[in-house]
């Protein structure tokens, strides 16, 4: 009985009529993929759309300033750009930018270094973790600039005070992100590292740091943003360090001289540097590392 049944209903493979194998490859490619028009392609580029927005804003600025005709309140864009070029040519702005960036790099480097130390302490000992968590909870909500009056008393009028405030603005953001990045490294990857016999320093540098790099980079970005804003603000309060002020002081000074186009030129410079670092430096690092590695969408 059984074999008979099997004869009647036997599993069978019935090939489809339009057997794919018999058709030439890519014969049906045209309807599946079609090129977009040039206009669509250009509009698809983010930079093009954003440039357009900036151009429109520039035109609005110029039109309104010409209509207002009050350079003390709102100078025209052309005035601002002329002043910007003049100040660059006579060496004032480059010198101010130099001063600002030098202090910034000192503070940023010191803050990052301290953050690294604190994080190493935190991942190795429980009391270190508690210390980091407590300190971060306390100081993260405190704007770094509010420490400036105190810093002035402790370190005097000069670079050390600025560096102190900068360290405070960088340290907690970087340490917090690095630490949570280390904690987030997957158990599997840790086990792989242990499997290779990696311990101590080589384990941290070869497994933990690259694996936590997305968080570390976020921390560095936030730290940079805090530091940049804090420094410009601090320089507005006092800029005379070793006889030369920075960008913030440049803005403050020119306001006192009622040279408003120069104030705008200073602001534009601050924006330009901020944009360059955030979009050029950090995005390049991001593209070459975590995006290439698929660790960030």
């Amino acid at each position, binding site marked *: 009985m059984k074999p008979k049944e099997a004869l009647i209903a036997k599993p069978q493979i019935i090939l489809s009529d339009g057997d794919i194998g018999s058709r030439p490859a890519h014969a049906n490619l045209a309807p599946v993929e079609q090129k977009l028009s040039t206009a669509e392609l250009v509009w698809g580029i983010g930079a093009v759309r954003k440039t357009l927005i900036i151009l429109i804003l520039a035109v609005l600025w110029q039109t309104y300033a010409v209509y207002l005709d009050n350079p003390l309140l709102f100078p025209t864009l052309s005035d601002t750009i002329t002043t910007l070029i003049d100040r660059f040519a006579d060496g004032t702005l480059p010198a101010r930018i130099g001063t600002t960036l030098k202090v910034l790099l000192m503070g940023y480097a010191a803050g990052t270094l301290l953050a690294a130390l604190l994080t190493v302490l935190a991942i190795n000992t429980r009391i270190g973790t508690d210390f980091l968590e407590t300190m971060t909870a306390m100081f993260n909500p405190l704007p770094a600039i509010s420490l400036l009056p105190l810093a002035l008393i402790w370190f005097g009028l000069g670079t050390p005070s600025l560096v102190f405030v900068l360290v405070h603005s960088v340290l907690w953001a970087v340490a917090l992100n690095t630490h949570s990045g280390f904690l987030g490294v997957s158990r599997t990857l840790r086990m792989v590292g242990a499997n*290779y016999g990696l311990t101590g320093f080589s384990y941290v540098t070869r497994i933990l740091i690259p694996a936590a790099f997305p968080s570390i980079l976020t921390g560095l970005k936030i730290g940079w943003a805090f530091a940049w804003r804090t420094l410009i603000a601090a320089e507005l309060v006092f800029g005379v360090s070793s006889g030369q002020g920075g960008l913030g002081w440049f803005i403050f000074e020119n306001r006192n001289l009622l040279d408003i186009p120069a104030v705008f030129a200073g602001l534009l410079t601050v924006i330009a540097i901020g944009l360059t670092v955030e979009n050029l430096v950090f995005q390049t690092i991001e593209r070459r590392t975590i995006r290439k590695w698929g660790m960030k969408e």
Partner: protein
Amino acid sequence: MSWPAFERHVSQHEAIKMSETAVSGTMRGPGGARSPLLTVDNVTLRYKTPSLLVTATEDVSFNVARSDRFVLLGPSGCGKSTLLKGVGGYMKPAAGSICINGRPVTKPGPDRMMVFQEFDQLMPWKTVLQNVMFPLVVARKLSQKQASDIARAYIDKVKLTRAIDSYPHTLSGGMKQRVAIARGMAMQPDILLMDEPFAALDALTRRQMQDELLQLWDDTKFTVIFVTHSIAEAIKISNRILLLSPHPGRVKAEVVNVDRASMGDGSAADLEREIHNLLFSEQVRSGATS
């Protein structure tokens, strides 16, 4: 001609004797020594959760000879993965001893390369080639040139040469597991430890990977301990199976000469049914009484 033998463990001594005779009857790798490569002796493993001390395995003994394809099989909760971690050196036994080549296992090391189930075991910041080279450079202290040559050879073995400079996130799950296997094998460890390496793959890829693993074994006759909860996979891959019972994990039986079971004459299906009955007999019985 020896058929798959299948016996309950009466005592630990009998178990060892049984598996040794089994090994002498089966295929052996070149230079296979008589003494077992790995001995696990009355091992009890415990781990802590925030509120509990869990006994994962209790009084488990087995040994693995060179070129064995040894499978730890059991339902979830039988401590098979924990046992593998013990052999890997990630856990210290609460009692008993684990020895490899006569040396006790105390910590993880490159003589026991692990292949995990998770796809994130590859380093996302390294290409396929760099991933395979990395342990050769850091653990075996080879030069870049030597490491690269060995790595390329093993990547070729797992048929990934065309993806050699790709980053892991661009690979499929099966390809990632192949990289992990190549990485483990390239180190030429004493034992390759595989913790459900194909569990996260789709069924078709899984079968393909099992075939490829067997082909690789035919090539190099490496020793492997393989953890799985699939009876069919265990029968397909292994020459010996250790059956574990759950809560806590104890040795229930050992199946030897599994490689003599064949798909063609139905002996594999018979063996599968027999193992299934044995693993679930207690549940059936307790279900009937309640």
